[in-house]
């Protein structure tokens, strides 16, 4: 019986000690991060003061040793972001370039192997700041990272640096992803300022993989139009739905005359996705000749196809409006914003 009581006593003491330890540890963590934030702000001020000293155009910027000692890519990135918006001008651009090349890129190359994903992310952000040729190896590492956010930044960096091995890796990765992830990765091409259509056209000519071909078409939609100088028919009639859709979208983008009959034909496709794309593209092409076929889609079994047909007809002038009214649907009753569903296609 004594043992039971002693055990109970020891157990209770242990329990409270355990609680105290856990609470203390949590407090210490909070204090650690509080201090860390203070230190970070101090370092940021130091860097800003240092850079401000060289702001006068007569001053020659020097990347002194202390900048290397700081080794904080996140702080450098914040400072650059602030200075980009507050201090425009050629002198800052030259300083910025030197800071990135001499200090940040070497740090980023080391940071890519870091255990912490935050550090790797900052490395990826660094490569997005300006083109730095000869870093294919690092860009591919970023594209192969397990963290999707880092992949995204890696994709941006690959585009900025336009390294062929990195671009090939990027395309292969997008081709292996599901639709949800593709939406994100393809979006980096929306902000690409340099036309890389030649590269993807070359890839279309050489690659037989249907998914890679589909990705190439999707990417080329984001660049200026170029004449189709390869046989696109096998892609348009492909059994691979993604390739079929991508090829149809591309034809609609570059060759209006060839696209319209193809799109009208696609309105009868059993897959709702293809009917939806076809209606959407016919609307973008203002294909008045397709109004009767689009009007037939007002009875479609799929809501999204139906709503897309309504929205397209609404924007097709008098003929479109007439087709809508004769169907019995009053356009003003329909919430047009529902058609925002279509913006992902």
């Amino acid at each position: 019986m004594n043992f039971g009581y002693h055990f109970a006593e020891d157990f209770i003491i242990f329990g409270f000690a355990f609680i105290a330890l856990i609470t203390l540890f949590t407090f210490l963590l909070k204090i650690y991060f509080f201090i860390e934030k203070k230190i970070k702000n101090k370092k940021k001020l130091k860097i800003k003061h240092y850079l401000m000293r060289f702001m006068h155009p007569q001053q020659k910027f020097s990347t002194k040793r202390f900048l290397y000692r700081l080794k904080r890519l996140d702080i450098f990135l914040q400072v650059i972001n602030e200075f980009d918006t507050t201090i425009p001008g050629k002198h800052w651009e030259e300083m910025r370039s030197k800071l990135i090349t001499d200090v940040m890129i070497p740090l980023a190359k080391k940071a890519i192997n870091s255990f912490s994903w935050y550090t790797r992310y900052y490395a990826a952000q660094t490569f997005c700041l300006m083109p730095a040729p000869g870093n294919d190896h690092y860009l591919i590492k970023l594209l192969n990272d397990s963290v999707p956010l880092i992949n995204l930044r890696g994709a941006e960096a690959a585009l900025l640096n336009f390294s062929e091995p990195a671009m090939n890796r990027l395309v292969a990765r997008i081709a292996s992803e599901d639709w949800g992830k593709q939406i994100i990765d393809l979006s980096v091409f929306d902000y690409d300022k340099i036309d890389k259509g030649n590269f993807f056209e070359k890839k279309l000519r050489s690659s037989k993989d249907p998914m890679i071909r589909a990705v190439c078409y999707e990417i080329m939609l984001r660049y200026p139009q170029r004449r189709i100088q390869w046989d696109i028919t096998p892609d348009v009639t492909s059994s691979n739905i993604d390739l079929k859709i991508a090829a149809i979208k591309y034809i609609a983008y570059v060759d209006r005359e060839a696209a319209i009959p193809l799109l009208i034909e696609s309105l009868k496709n059993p897959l709702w996705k293809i009917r939806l794309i076809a209606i959407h593209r016919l609307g973008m092409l203002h294909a008045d000749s397709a109004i009767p076929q689009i009007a037939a889609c007002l009875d479609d079994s799929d809501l999204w196809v139906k709503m897309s047909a309504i929205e397209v007809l609404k924007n097709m002038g008098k003929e479109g409006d007439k087709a809508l009214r004769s169907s019995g649907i009053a356009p003003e009753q329909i919430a047009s914003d529902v058609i925002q569903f279509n913006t992902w296609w």
Partner: protein
Amino acid sequence: MTAIVNSLNWIILWYLIALSFCYVVLLAASIPDIFYRFAESETGDIKKILHIKALRPVTVIISAHNEENNILDTIYSVFKNTYPEMHIIVVNDGSTDNTLTILKKTFNLIKINNLIPQIVTTKGKIKGYYISHYGIKLTVIDKENTGKSDSLNTALNTCRTPLFITLDADSVLEPDAIVNAIFYMMTHENTLAVGGAVYILNGCTVKNGEIIEKKMDRRPLYALQTCEYMRSFLFSRSGWNMLGGGLSYAGAFTLFNHRAVIDVGGFDTENLAQDFEIITHLHEYMRQKKKPYTIGYTAAAVAWTDVPGTMKELWKQRINWQRDTLRSMLLHVRMLFNPRYGIIGMFTYPFFLFGETLGVVVEFTAYFLVVLSWYYGILDTYWAILLFVICWGFVTFLTMATAFMSFVTYNKYHRLSDLPLLLLVVLTESFGYRQLLVLCRIKATVSYFIKKLLFWK
């Protein structure tokens, strides 16, 4: 009789020691999660990191049955979320109150004809499909009452986004809940599901979907449930997250990959604990396919939900949970100690089966033995004290540690005086409330096995 009682006592003691050890491991595992929360708080704003277009569209699915008092707050809280690419599907699951009327009036709903494809088989007949004339991204499906799982499956068939969130109709989301869940997904590879933390809404002041004042409800039943939820979400789920993923995430707020849920056939319509079942099923499916995946939890994505206010409602809820969790566990029993399922099969599943689900049998047996021993005059006080101290002491210490951790870190409650109340509740939880829940769960367990036996015969 003495020999039998002694033997059982030893078995129970070792069981409790093993269980306590597992809880210590879980608590230790949950601490890095706190570290990551602090670290993440500086970089968690996904809108600054990603361009708007790059965000994956999400559908929030709300299944509502007789939720006329709560549905508007739930929907408004979703609209107030900072995530830009969002749609809402509300499934009116045969409500007999004014849920549908309120929705029609508030959002100016118009009925349209739409054929919903049967990607996942559903049972309930669709009575109407509505969209809002205001141009907001809201769809309402009116169907006959066939349960939450079937309602979710119906919404799944309509959902066209790559991601969806299940949200209870009596829950309110914090404005950054969806962003934080998506951020978890963007920072972990191959994420299929992300569970969020759930706090208790009762006692808080809500206005138009926004929680103005967050405070703990001081009524005993709500305070006790607050204690339970806190232990569950801030310790258990955080711990499992670091150990490879748990089996239980809140149906009140979980983000899913649409394709993955379709691949496993949607939600189980025979099971009221569909949230538990879908996660277990996803684990099993992905392990069988040998595909890399992540099922995670983030305490940063927060929903606040209503809980039962009377003993009768609580009793009914816990009976359903116990019965359906048991059913789900036995459905996937092939995972038990099966190395093919990795840590889920070797540790997580056995823990949930023997510790969480069937542990109630051991606890009930312990109480029963005490009473039996006293009746026969063979009660060994030493054993009684020992078992009680372990039972009460361990849970109390763990919960108190979680309470302190919660107040230092996340601190969702605005009122400082909630902490002493919480600690008092923690100390007294095992004197009555816990025993009541044990009774309730043992009833559910026994009746489940009896029905199964009768059905088998």
